[in-house]
C-alpha cells in the first residue's frame, strides 16, 4: 500500500454468505498496476464467488470493490465492463452462432459505442477501422485464418482463445481470468501461458484463478491463497510454495 495510485483493484472487507454458508469472510486484496495476481485454493474456497463479486454478478453482503477511484459494488455487469473490467469465464462464454470475427467485433463495438447506441442505418462492413482492430487481436492469438468460421465449430481450447480475444480487444484496465487453462491439453496450456506472458509485457493488470500450479508459477507475480472463504496466505510464488500452511490447506500436505 506504499503508493495508492498504483492500485488498480482494491477489495476491502468483502463478506458474502449463501444461506448459512460463509462463502467469503473479510476479504482484502490490493492489486497493483501491471501485475498478475493469482488466486489459488481448493474447490469451494470461494474463488469464483470473489470474481463474481468483482464483476457485479453477485452483490457482497458488506465491503467494497474499487477500480481505481470508481466503486464497483452495486453496479451492473455492463457498467463494470464499461469502466474497464473484462472477464474470461470458466466455461467459454462466446457467441456460438456468430463467426469469430463477429465475436470479436461485438466487444470492440462495446468499447467504442458504450452501453447503448442506436445506429441501424450504419454499415458495419463499411467500418474498416473496427475490423482492423478485431483482426489484429485475432492475429495476436493466431486465429486470423479462422476469422470467418462459426464459433460453435471450434474446439474448447480455441473457444477459450476466442473469449480471450474478446476481452483483449477492449484493452481493459483489469482482466479477470477464471481458470483459463481448465480442460486444455498440455500443448494448448503452454500456448495460453505464452499468450498471457505477452499480454503481461504490455502492462495489462490481471487476476487469474487457476488450479494448474505450472500456470500459476509461470505467470503470477503475487499469489493469494483462499481456503474456506478466507485468505490464509499471500506472497510471491516462491513464498507460497514454501508455506507449510498452504500445503496443509490446499494440497493436503503434498509437495508442490
Amino acid at each position, binding site marked *: 500500500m506504499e503508493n495508492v495510485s498504483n492500485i488498480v483493484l482494491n477489495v476491502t472487507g468483502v463478506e458474502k454468505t449463501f444461506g448459512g454458508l460463509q462463502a467469503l469472510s473479510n476479504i482484502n486484496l490490493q492489486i497493483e498496476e501491471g501485475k498478475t495476481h493469482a488466486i489459488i485454493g481448493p474447490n469451494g474456497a470461494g474463488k469464483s464467488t470473489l470474481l463474481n463479486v468483482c*464483476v457485479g454478478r453477485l452483490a457482497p453482503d458488506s465491503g467494497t470493490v474499487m477500480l481505481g477511484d470508481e466503486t464497483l459494488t452495486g453496479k*451492473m*455487469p*455492463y457498467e463494470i*465492463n*464499461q469502466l474497464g473490467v*473484462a*472477464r474470461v*469465464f470458466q466455461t467459454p*462464454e*462466446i*457467441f*456460438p*452462432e*456468430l463467426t469469430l470475427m*463477429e465475436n470479436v*467485433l*461485438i*466487444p470492440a*463495438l*462495446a*468499447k467504442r*459505442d*458504450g*452501453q*447503448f*447506441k*442506436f*445506429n*441501424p*442505418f*450504419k*454499415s*458495419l*462492413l*463499411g*467500418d*474498416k477501422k473496427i475490423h482492423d482492430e478485431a483482426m489484429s487481436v485475432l492475429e495476436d492469438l493466431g486465429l486470423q485464418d479462422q476469422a470467418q468460421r*462459426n464459433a*460453435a*465449430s471450434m474446439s474448447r481450447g480455441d473457444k477459450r482463445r476466442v473469449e480471450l480475444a*474478446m476481452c483483449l480487444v*477492449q484493452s481493459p484496465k483489469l482482466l479477470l481470468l477464471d481458470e483459463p487453462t481448465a480442460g486444455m491439453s498440455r500443448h494448448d496450456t503452454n500456448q495460453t501461458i505464452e499468450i498471457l506472458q505477452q499480454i503481461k509485457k504490455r502492462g495489462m493488470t490481471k487476476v487469474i484463478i487457476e488450479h494448474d500450479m505450472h500456470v500459476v508459477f509461470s505467470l503470477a507475480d503475487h499469489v493469494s491463497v483462499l481456503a474456506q472463504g478466507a485468505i490464509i496466505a499471500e506472497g510471491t510464488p516462491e513464498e507460497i510454495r514454501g508455506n507449510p500452511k498452504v500445503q496443509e490447506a490446499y494440497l493436503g500436505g503434498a509437495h508442490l
Partner: protein
Amino acid sequence: MNNKTTQKDLFLMLAFAAVIFAMPIWLEPIGASYPDLMQKFAIFGIFAIGFNILFGLTGYLSFGHAAFLGIGSYTAVWSFKLLTMNVIPGLIFGTLLAGVFALAIGFICLRRSGIYFSILTLAFAQMSYNLAYSVLTPITNGETALQLTLQDPRILDDAPLSGAGLPSTELFGVSMSGLPGFYFCAVVLIIAFYVSLKIFRSPFGLKLAAIKSNQNRMGYTGFNTRPYLLAAFVISGMYAGLAGTLMAVTDPLAGAERMQWTASGEVVLMTILGGLGTLIGPMIGAGLIKYFENIFSAFNENVLHEIFSFLPEILENLMVFIINPFVGKGWHLTLGALFMVIVIFLPGGIMEGLSRIAKWVRKDRSKPTGDDMGTAKSKPSPGEG
C-alpha cells in the same frame, strides 16, 4: 470482400424489387395475380419482415404483434374519417401510434424473457382485442367494425358532391383499390425490406443477433441489452402498424378480429415457415401461407368431387372423404401439417431448404467429398407450435 458483400446486397435489393413489381406477371400461371391477393402478399410480407427483426434477430417471441396491426388499421381509418382520404397521413399516424404503443407494451414485457415474455405479450394483445371489441366501442365501433360514413368531416378534403357515394382511399388522385393499390403496397414493401436489410447489416443488427446468441455474455461485454431489445420491439411494432394501415388503405375498414391472437400466431408461422432470422424467408413464408389459404379455402365438396370424377365412384367418394376436412374452412389443418413437416425436417424453414439445394447442386458440380451438412444458422426455439 467488403465490396463483394455490398454488391451482393445491391443485387439482392434489385432482384427483390423486380420480383415484387413483376408479381402480376409471374403469379398469373398459378392463378394468384389478382390485386386483392397480391396486396395481401405485400402487406403480410411487411408484417413478417418486421416481426423477424424482433423474433429472428433477438430470439424474443412475441405473441402479441396483431395488437399493433389493429392499432395501425384503426388509426388509418380515423385519419380517413377525420382528415383526408389521402393515404399518406394515415400511413404516418398509424405507424407512429403503433410505435408508441409498442414502446409502452415492450417496456413492460421486456422485464422478462423466454416464455414469460411471450405470455406477457399475449396477455397485452388479448387486452387490446377486448378493449377494441367492447370497452372502447366509441373509438373502435365494437363488433360492427370501424367504417367510413358519409357524415365524416374529412376536413382536408373538398366537400363531396351531393349524392356521391363513399369516397375511396387515394394517393394524390389515384384510387388505392385494385392494381394501383397493389403497386402502392409493393413500393412500401420494398422500402420496408430495404430498411430491414440495412438493420441486418448494421452494428445494431449484429448486437441484436448477439443477444439471441448469448445474452449473458452481452452483459459482461458492456452492453445494456434492455434498450436494444426495446428498440427492436418498437421497430417491429411499427412494421406491424404499417402493415395495419395498408390493410385499411386497401379496404377502409378496421375490425377487432384483426387483433386476435390467431393473427399474432399467423405471423409467427410465416416467419418460421420461411426461415427465421433470414432476410427474405419471412416474405416467402407470408406469401406461401396467404397463397395456400387462398387456394385451399376456396375448395369445397363439390369442387373435390369434380377433381376426382375420373376415379370410380367409390374411390372418388373415399378421396373426397379424406381430403375434405383439409380444405375449405378446415384449411388450417393443412397449414398445421405443413408447419409440422417444415419444423421437423427443415428447422431453418424454406430458406434452409433452398440453401441445402444450392449446396447440393454446387457439390454435384465440383467433386463429391465428405459429408458437409450445413448447420442452420438459426434454429427456432421449441415451443411456438
